[in-house]
């Protein structure tokens, strides 16, 4: 899946990262897809992996919560809150993953209202 403005998953990924303080709203959406995890607010590059994983778990939980509470998202297929948090955290902790990788995973986990 490419990073495009007409994708609901991409749009909701971007806006939720903004609302969770990971990105500024004035950062161009089209460039945001290429941002590495280490360029988001939660990822502290000089910290040990234990701390990065802590921040990633908190962020993954918050992303899931905002998708369901604000966006009205439901889980796709056999996905659950548990699996969604676990899978998103796995993407977040790798500093060479990019935001569009996260959006790809989100697209597999959630169904957003049209």
């Amino acid at each position, binding site marked *: 899946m490419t990073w495009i403005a007409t994708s609901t998953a991409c749009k909701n990924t971007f806006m939720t990262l903004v609302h969770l303080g990971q990105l*500024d*709203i*004035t950062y161009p959406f089209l460039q945001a897809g290429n941002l590495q995890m280490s360029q988001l607010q939660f990822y502290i590059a000089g910290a040990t992996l234990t701390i990065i994983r802590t921040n990633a778990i908190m962020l993954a939980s918050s992303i899931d919560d905002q998708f369901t509470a*604000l966006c009205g998202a439901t889980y796709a297929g056999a996905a*659950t809150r548990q699996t969604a948090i676990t899978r998103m955290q796995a993407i977040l902790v*790798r*500093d060479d993953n990019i935001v569009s990788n996260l959006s790809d995973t989100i697209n597999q986990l959630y169904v957003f209202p049209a």
Partner: protein
Amino acid sequence: MYSPLNFTSVRNMAAIVLAIAGSFTAAAQVPAVQLPSPMSVNELQKLADTLLSDPATYNDAYAKFLSGVATTSPQLYKTLRDLNVNFKTFEATGQPAALGLDYSYQNSWTKTRVTGNNAGFQSYTLNFEGNIAYRKANNPANLLQSTFTYTSSFLHGGKTQVLTPAERARYTQISDSAFNANVAGNMALAKTLDKKAIQFIQTSNQYYIGINGNFSYETNQDFSRQQFVPGVLVNLGARPWNRNEALLYFNLPDYPFALIRLLTGTSDSFKLSPASFPSGLIGIDHVMPGQDSVRRALTGNLNAYNRFRCEFAFKTQMAQIGTETLFFSADYRYYRELNAVSAIKKADMAKYGYFTAAIAATNGFFISYASGKLPFDQRNSNTYGLGIHYNLGNFKR
């Protein structure tokens, strides 16, 4: 200074391999160099020295190599990609610039259980990380760590109030408008609309506590000093999303940056950032030296000892300049041997403190600073860095 080209040097062999393999096109991957014609042997040697002294050359070559492996051997690619390798230059005060690399690998298996406002996690994690310098004497952070960790953790709160259908419709309309303004490049409008969208978001404070049992193998880069370190760590995190509660105001490191955000116009009021609340860990290690000639010379033995350790980490948005975001990050680690003998104290090996800080922009530019020493470092050092962060993933898209 690096030695001149000769057929026995590692760097010369690297140049030959790159040329023969044909998998690295120097002209495409490194800044174009105008070659005077004709070039003497000395000029060719100087050119090669310049290219082979630049960590960007190795980073580009590695990225190109990974891109090739991704096509020919997906399984090998997955393993190599998990091993995050970054070539860089160490510039410690009082020491010449040293080419080297840092590496990190991690893999984890996590089980999650959610109950209402709470979530529990059990995970098994394998981490490998460290710094290696071409010349070991110039390595300012000479510590390689291989760690297996079992973590049991608990997450509470961070719940966002569910919107009514009418509220959701209104929120979606405003949020989509902010998004469309961003895509259209109208950032002032995007900012204004997003402020309205945020008013719909009511989230409770979020708290995290994790208990980790870990077993580490620590060594310097030439393995002349080694030790096995089982230990217990407690790590803590919090996100004060509810601005009406007091926790947010305990985000002390963010006060100067909240002021900078106000002064630079990034924020229209003095606002602390909930997302940047510091994280930390604290614990006890039981260190079992395996090979340590320095310690043996000082104490006459390699008896095991206990070590206290803690770490605090912080990162916040410093400013928004045009479309680029500047982040400030800092991390401090402290290790202290408990009940150290006087010989260890006199040798200044009873405690270690290591501080790193960086300002990094979303376009990749960064300035970094590191000070102190880690276990196995025999002297304090101050190291600065300046450069561009490469996204090695570019070659796979």
